[in-house]
């Protein structure tokens, strides 16, 4: 079976796959290049290495130490966020930052410096990493932290797996009182309403996010603000989904996602009955998509792209233009995710977030028209001083990446000569 990333776009298969389970072991001797592959939840080719070797890191799944007093956890880099939640939520600890899926490895979380619904207050995942070990192809091992090998620390956070292999990580968990999330929902109509809601909510809520319907003429959507419930049960709250997720069969010949199904879905989603306030389990709050295993198969064999950009806050009007353009194109897919990023700076040189606003949206792969649409979007994002998220990208041009990545030249010397990826070969100088 050819290994794919989450977008399932056809790509060059890795020629070799190695499984890695012992953090003290040496890297394999290889002729070509290698790349760590965590859990393949990136959408494009940052986790692929066509024609060369992928080193599977999921076998590095051991915890190393946990300090009950401070919440500092040390674990191997292939541990999944879901495994951390399973072990530590019942003891009253939670991830400091989590993306919209819990099925990613700690190594992958660092390499893409992932962000979550609390970016406005907590920054990226990398902001909560205290140190890690970096294994290079020359056999050297470096302890990296803000105080030790700080340059390697900065290059590796958001470093797209190119600086070497992260073997273990030390990070901070945070205290929670229960598994419940106290949430508030608002429907909004138009971006002005979104931004004013958002400004108020960010001041008083830990998590904020909005789902918007990109097919509607004026962007409308649902704004959600949430906080860990102040007290409650660590074991259960109503609304935890079943333990076995729904699953979709692997090779659906056609896409279930088309203009008609999307309009119906987005309509229904927008108008569904919404409690203004509720307490829900953290799983449906943070990971609505994880309830359907392999939902990416919905798009059938043609697969799909995700397009995620960030614009600096000053470029507010560009966002209106981009949304209008997407709506007019009729190509956008399910609800898009809209979120503002705050001012906490990540240590990572290539970290994606910047203070501003980010939009993530799926596009079914219709070939040339889809790619042409992205070119137009790139031009608008670029002109507004924005950039694209590498974790979601499978097609941006090298020229665009280099122009929109200000600290790239600082990063380049830290690339391991033996490490490479499809993404690196596509965009790096």
């Amino acid at each position, binding site marked *: 079976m050819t290994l794919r990333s989450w977008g399932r776009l056809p790509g060059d298969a890795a020629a070799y796959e190695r*499984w890695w*389970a*012992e*953090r*003290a072991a040496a890297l394999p001797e290889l002729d070509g290049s290698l790349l760590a592959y965590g859990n393949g939840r990136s959408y494009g080719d940052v986790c692929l290495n066509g024609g060369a070797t992928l080193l599977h890191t999921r076998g590095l799944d*051991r*915890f*190393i*130490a*946990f300090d009950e007093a401070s919440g500092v*956890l040390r*674990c191997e880099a292939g541990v999944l966020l879901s495994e951390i939640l399973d*072990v530590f939520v019942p003891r009253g600890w939670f991830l400091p930052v989590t993306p919209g899926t819990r099925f990613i490895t700690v190594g992958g979380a660092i390499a893409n410096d992932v962000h979550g619904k609390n970016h406005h207050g907590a920054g990226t995942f990398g902001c909560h990493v205290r140190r890690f070990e970096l294994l290079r192809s020359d056999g050297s091992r470096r302890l990296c932290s803000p105080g030790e090998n700080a340059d390697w620390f900065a290059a590796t956070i958001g470093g797209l797996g190119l600086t070497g292999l992260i073997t273990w990580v030390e990070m901070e968990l945070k205290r929670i009182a229960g598994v419940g999330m106290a949430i508030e929902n608002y429907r909004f109509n138009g971006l002005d309403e979104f931004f004013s809601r958002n400004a108020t909510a960010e001041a008083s809520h830990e998590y904020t996010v909005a789902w918007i319907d990109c097919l509607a003429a004026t962007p409308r959507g649902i704004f959600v603000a949430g906080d860990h419930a102040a007290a409650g049960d660590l074991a259960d709250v109503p609304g935890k989904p079943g333990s076995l997720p729904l699953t979709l069969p692997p090779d659906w010949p056609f896409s279930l996602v088309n203009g008609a199904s999307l309009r119906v879905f987005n309509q229904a989603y927008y108008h569904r009955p919404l409690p203004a306030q509720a307490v829900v389990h953290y799983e449906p709050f943070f990971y609505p998509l994880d309830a359907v295993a392999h939902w990416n198969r919905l798009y059938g064999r043609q697969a799909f792209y995700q397009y995620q950009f960030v614009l600096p806050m000053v470029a507010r009007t560009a966002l209106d233009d981009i949304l209008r353009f997407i709506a007019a194109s009729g190509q956008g897919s399910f609800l898009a995710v809209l979120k503002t990023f705050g001012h906490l700076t990540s240590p990572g040189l290539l970290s994606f977030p910047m203070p501003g606003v980010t939009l993530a949206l799926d596009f079914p792969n219709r070939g040339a028209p889809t790619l042409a649409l992205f070119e137009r979007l790139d031009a608008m994002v670029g002109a507004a001083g924005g950039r694209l998220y590498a974790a979601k990208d499978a097609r941006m041009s090298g020229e665009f990446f280099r122009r929109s990545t200000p600290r790239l030249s600082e990063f380049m010397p830290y690339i391991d000569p033996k490490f490479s990826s499809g993404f690196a070969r596509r965009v790096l100088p």
Partner: protein
Amino acid sequence: MQRILIIGATSAIAEATARLWAARGDALFLVGRRADRLEVIAADLRVRGAAAVGSFVMDACDIPAHGAMLEAAELTIGGLDVALIAHGSLPDQKACQASVELTLREIDCNGLSVVALATLLGEKFETQGRGSLAVIGSVAGDRGRQSNYVYGAAKGMVGLFLQGLRNRLARKGVHVLTIKPGFVDTPMTAAFSKGALWAKPASIARGIVRAIDRKSDEVYLPGFWYLIMFIIRHIPERVFKRLSL
């Protein structure tokens, strides 16, 4: 809390099983050949919630060392409620055919060392009047096949031995479990290409914990192997000998 001894604790199946016990807060004593791996696994199990974790470096084929190992286990975790024997090695059948020495070594590792440990643990549990002895055999022990009969013979011996032991200890309050996994995706089988019949160590582990909790006598894991092996065991030998299995 149960006090559990695991022999061959660096095995993928054993480690997955130990994680489930650790999450329940059991006390674990890990035995294996590689000190560094035992330490890594012990640390992981502590974080996962094990009440206590000890370890002991021993080659299972070193039969004179078994007694000291058992003493250390009892001392470290304060007694013994469950023992899981998990070590094993998958021989290169062709190489065995060409070497008496290798064949006997494989039978020693997969068969005799297990018989020795089961004897010792059987005595121990009989004396204390309770305890669960769980041993990982294999579906390969149900019938000799040309592709894998050295391994199969050793696992088959273990199966028969445990039947007798179970029969003897049934009235003494001692539980004896034979675990027969089918194909499991572990380092032992890294060289095989994996199809639909293959299971993950975590799912085998759940089956093992459940079978010990329920005091089952014999389990096929996953359960559908019971059916497959039922058929395989019932093919007449005159037909079977012509099959290429």
